């Protein structure tokens, strides 16, 4: 078997008294689309954010390839250039245009030349279908467009894995599909993806592996269609019964 892209080993996370993650072991394999589902408050987002150490685990180890991120000697900034993340709240820089949102890190972190950065940024904007919005400020874009710019911004770093943290949850219903379409195309292009989502249709159609997380524990794991059709645990069955109104 090939080496995992990322790996979590015995991860625990406490927020004060609140034990959010209770011993998570997880591997992310190349080119898979790993979907994480579960009730709100189950620790999905915390788990995802642990992968690039935006959330520091209270216990356990995080690996990216051969690099241990939980080792204080690791240069996190360098590692993070290989892991894109897209947030629920978009988090575009409001004082920069769509294009400048993308070129900022290309220039400052990857040290690309102005022309290289601009060329790559335009290419990624076209990739998400927003080539004509290059000079628009985020405030002038719809939620769906902002989220696609955010995806383009992450992709422009040419990451080896993309993390998606409930990226459609803040969107109006009619804007969700355009973002899911971009994600589906990424999956088809072979991008390794970890996706926290409430979109069960997307999970089933695009996901290659699914994890059901509840109260900080991985309760169930398997092929999405399999889990949806025959959940083995009672908790999974209950959760799916509530969300799968299809």
């Amino acid at each position: 078997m090939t080496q995992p892209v990322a790996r979590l080993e015995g991860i625990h996370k406490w927020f004060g008294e609140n034990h959010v993650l209770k011993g998570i072991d997880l591997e992310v394999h190349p080119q898979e689309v790993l979907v994480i589902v579960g009730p709100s408050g189950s620790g999905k987002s915390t788990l995802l954010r642990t992968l690039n150490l935006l959330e520091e685990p209270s216990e356990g180890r995080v690996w990216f390839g051969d690099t241990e991120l939980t080792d204080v000697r690791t240069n996190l900034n360098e590692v993070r250039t290989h892991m894109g993340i897209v947030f629920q709240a978009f988090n575009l820089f409001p004082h920069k245009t769509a294009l400048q949102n993308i070129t900022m890190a290309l220039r400052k972190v990857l040290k690309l030349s102005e022309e290289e950065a601009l060329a790559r940024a335009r290419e990624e904007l076209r990739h998400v279908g927003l080539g004509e919005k290059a000079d628009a400020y985020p405030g002038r874009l719809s939620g769906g467009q902002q989220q696609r710019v955010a995806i383009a911004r992450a992709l422009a770093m040419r990451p080896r894995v993309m993390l998606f943290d409930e990226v459609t949850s803040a969107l109006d219903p009619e804007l969700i599909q355009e973002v899911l379409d971009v994600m589906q195309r990424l999956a088809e292009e072979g991008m390794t993806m970890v996706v926290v989502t409430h979109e069960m249709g997307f999970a089933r159609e695009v996901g290659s592996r699914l994890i059901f997380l509840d109260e900080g524990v991985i309760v169930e794991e398997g092929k999405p269609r399999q889990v949806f059709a025959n959940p083995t645990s009672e908790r999974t069955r209950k959760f799916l019964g509530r969300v799968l109104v299809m």
Partner: protein
Amino acid sequence: MSSSTKGQPQAELAATPAERRLVWLATVTMWVGGAGLALLLLGIPAVLVVGGVLPYERLLEGFLSPATRTILVTSMALGGVAILAGFTRFRRMPTKGSRERAIAGAVLGIQALAVALIVLAFQNLGEPDPFFRNFLNFEVLQGYGSTFLRAVMNTVILAFAGEAGGVILGLVLAVLLLSKRRVVRAPARAYVNFFRGTPLIWQLSIFYFGFSFGLGIQFSAFTAAIIVFILNTGAYAAEVFRAGIQSIERGQLEAARSLGMSYSQAMMNAIIPQAVTRVIPPLMNEFVILIKDTSLVVVLGLFAENYELYTWAREGYSSSANASFFVAAAAGYLAVTLPLIGAVNAVERRLRSGLVGVTAK
């Protein structure tokens, strides 16, 4: 008629002749009240200026003249009429606009009446002569024109240098204050608390006299003042910047860091540029305060060429025993601060409307 008014434009509400008369009355009330106040605020200064400003006896003569008296009586009559008409009729006004005009007329009338009464009392019960001789005796200012202008310049230089240096110092201090490491935070916090917790006048004195006598480091009072203004403004600006940086959503820092930027890169490129626009109004307010606080350097004993407005006025006052210098100084301060205050309000309005368009969808 109430049954047929639903959805009709308001102008058409005043349809009957009686209603049209009321609307007309409201407009007249507003103009009468306004005329009463305008007559006072423009008429009396006009009478004074036309009668002559120098020497002060001419000014006083104008103030006590029949013309001024006529203006006062007329204003009070206009104000009284507006108050009566406005307050007795505004409830019956058929449209919102006419109601507002009736109320405005009555309020303007009250203001005219109040101002006229104060002036009248001063004219008849007070002592206009010593007042005019001591405060509006602009003869004593003759020959002080160039020193006055230099004093205005020096005030602006002190405030501007203090603010410019203070903003830079404040930004550095704010970043230190926001450090997650206590050993970095603590000294910055101590500095800020010290400079916010002691009077500026004390800081000026200690710095100037303490350093020159204690350490034998010699600098002019003017230089010392600029340094202290920088140190002091830095402490206040640090808190303003800190609050501004903290007001930027957490997700902005996370987005920058997740792209591989270091903390300082994220601060420089993503966070601080956004924070700076948010803190412009409070920083400009600080600047207005500093302009006025430059007057505290009076305790240091400046050289004549370094006089700022307040020192200039006090020196003029002690050599002439006439407070008209302070009146002139007030004019100097207002000439600098009023445009700034206007600018702050304009910037605030623009940020308030502009930011909504930029950050929200």
